[in-house]
């Protein structure tokens, strides 16, 4: 049959049509133009198909797009460009697909929608003071230094009120081959940025979901507040608050709107509840020192500039669950531990100063074993005991705090005596 249609053509066309129909039934293929929705268990957000950033980044970095797609920011209509696009004068910006963007938005961008929060952060020790603890004032521009001087009462100051920011000796000894992976990683929460702003909101508000529930959980703070020199996370784990969180936390209402949080939502507090959340009669704050009364991190603890207001604010948070007597008892006990630690640290520090004064050891920090020991004494054990006393972690007061502190003090005393004896023998 010369005019017969070849079987390849018949099968080819038929198969193509059938398969296209099948695909159409399952995917709506020819209707086209649809971008698949991104969904998780509870939320469903559809990106605007015209969103240029999501169009490419769904392929390049799908995790980021998926995280943002289910975020409250996306639901509020915030677009990638709202945070990432900066003005052409911004030194952190670069050209990218027709936009002038910054890869890492700074508080300057966050402040466009969250001015109070960034201002509170700027005034806190999470801001500039945390970076100054490493590098002093070296990395701050004159404008930023002026801002710190005028706006952060909690920045370290001498008796005359002048900022006493000096470079950290250990930071200098370890140098750039270590510190970016070590101290800097956490202390960069207050790093000065090239755009003039200070700090990094993303340290706590992890990208790109910016989850309220996540930032209320202790693990966020525990990213940095852990380990022998500031074991708040471990202390919390040991405390009744921490045990309740671990055993009951999954039932708590983590997504309650800021300012509406009560003990019904969270029957026990996390770090955020006590220190920054709006709770009871306290409003939300991003000044992490606002409810504190003492510089517990210091070798010798002194009062904070806002000690009275700070303590009253914290007590009012405690009073959501505890009686006034109970709260006062905790504070009295903790203040007593702090005084004890102060006394012992001063004793050790007098011994070291005496050795330096008599020319037995060098003034240079971390040059002798005894200076390392004296540092551990307050930096590890003194701090642990003080933090734990206020946070109700008895094991950290006793066995990770006071006991090793006393042991270290004894070692410092014995070693100082040996050094003096050796020095005398050498002088003869």
């Amino acid at each position: 049959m010369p005019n017969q249609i070849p079987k390849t053509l018949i099968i080819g066309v038929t198969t193509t049509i059938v398969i296209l129909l099948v695909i159409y039934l399952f995917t709506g293929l020819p209707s086209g133009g649809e971008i698949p929705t991104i969904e998780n268990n509870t939320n469903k957000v559809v990106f605007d198909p015209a969103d240029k950033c999501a169009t490419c980044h769904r392929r390049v970095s799908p995790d980021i797009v998926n995280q943002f797609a289910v975020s409250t920011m996306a639901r509020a209509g915030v677009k990638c460009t709202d945070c990432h696009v900066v003005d052409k004068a911004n030194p952190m910006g670069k050209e990218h697909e027709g936009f002038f963007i910054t890869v890492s938005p700074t508080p300057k961008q966050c402040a466009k929608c969250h001015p109070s929060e960034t201002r509170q952060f700027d005034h806190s020790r999470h801001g500039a003071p945390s970076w100054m603890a490493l590098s002093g004032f070296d990395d701050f521009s004159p404008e930023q230094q002026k801002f710190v001087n005028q706006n952060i009462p909690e920045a370290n100051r001498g008796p005359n009120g002048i900022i006493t920011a000096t470079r950290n000796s250990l930071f200098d000894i370890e140098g750039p081959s270590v510190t970016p992976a070590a101290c800097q990683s956490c202390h960069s929460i207050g790093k000065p940025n090239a755009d003039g702003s200070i700090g990094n909101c993303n340290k706590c508000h992890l990208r790109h979901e910016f989850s309220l529930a996540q930032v209320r959980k202790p693990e966020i703070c525990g990213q940095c507040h852990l380990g022998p020199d500031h074991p708040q996370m471990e202390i919390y784990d040991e405390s009744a608050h921490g045990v309740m969180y671990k055993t009951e936390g999954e039932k708590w209402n983590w997504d309650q709107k800021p300012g509406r949080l009560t003990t019904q939502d969270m029957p026990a507090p996390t770090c955020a509840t006590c220190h920054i959340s709006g709770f009871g009669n306290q409003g939300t704050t991003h000044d992490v020192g606002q409810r504190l009364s003492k510089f517990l991190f210091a070798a010798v603890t002194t009062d904070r500039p806002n000690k009275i207001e700070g303590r009253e604010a914290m007590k009012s948070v405690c009073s959501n669950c505890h009686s006034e007597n109970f709260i006062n008892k905790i504070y009295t006990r903790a203040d007593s531990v702090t005084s004890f630690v102060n006394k012992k640290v001063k004793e050790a520090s007098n011994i070291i100063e005496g050795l330096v004064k008599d020319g037995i050891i060098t003034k240079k920090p971390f040059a002798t074993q005894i200076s390392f020991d004296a540092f551990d004494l307050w930096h590890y054990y003194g701090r642990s005991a003080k933090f734990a006393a206020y946070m109700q972690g008895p094991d950290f007061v006793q066995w990770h705090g006071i006991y090793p502190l006393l042991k270290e003090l004894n070692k410092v005393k014995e070693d100082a005596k040996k050094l003096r004896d050796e020095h005398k023998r050498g002088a003869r």
Partner: protein
Amino acid sequence: MNNVEIFHLANVRLPMEKNRLLLIFVGINLFFTGIDVALAHSINSFIPVYEWIPIYFFPLGAMSCFIVSFQPSPKKSFAIIHIALMSIGILVGVIGMAFHMNAVLNPLGHLSWAWLVFGSPILAPLAFSGISLLGLYAITEEVENSPGVLKIPGLGIFKAPISRDKHFLWLVGLGFGASAVTSTIDHAQYGYSVYKLIAIVYGLFATSVVITIALSNQWSKKDELVYFWTMIAAIVVGVMGFGFHLSADLAGTGNISLERMLVFAPVFAPLLYSDLGMLGLIIVAKQRRKMI
């Protein structure tokens, strides 16, 4: 010697013997596929470390094809090395598919359309398997009048269930099939439009035509005509796709951005259709009988 006819439709003079031409074809394919994979894997700096596997493999595989293609009759040692490398290539593709599959399934624990579309391309690594399989067959010779009896230089004779030509046809058919599936998935990323459907529709049609021939014991001259023009059209579709992808990557800016080339519309991907079209023609090319 190298005069061939493609069915009854065209007489062509090949620059060299068909098997050697196939080996060069496989070598070039391995090379460009390797470059393509290197660019794709460079997006995430070759992390995890096993993203280096295809990068280490492709130069060796390509080199083996080129070296063997220079030998009129490959030596036993070269043939063994070549077979080993091509077998590794098949394995690289299969393992790669498993890795891609794992990457796509891992985030949610089940297959979702969004992850299928925007995650690692599941079928893409099979390109290595397909090309390597082609490289494996390219050094074999079929014993005259004994379909499926394959002579491997230096290693002996093996009996395959189907003829060598059918093997090639299946490879081309499945290649078109995989391309059609990949087009369907990839083009879903930015929404379908009429010209994006060309690749899908054409891929399905070409698959059907080639597989029909592969399954048939007999076909008419008209079927040969359909096959021939389907392959020619595949070459055209590939070049058109290259133009569309390039145009998308230029994004109206007139500037070539490596970033866009890597993550937006992969410029070389549509040329796979051209590649398969050419291969489809080469494999049916038969040595012309000399007039006595």
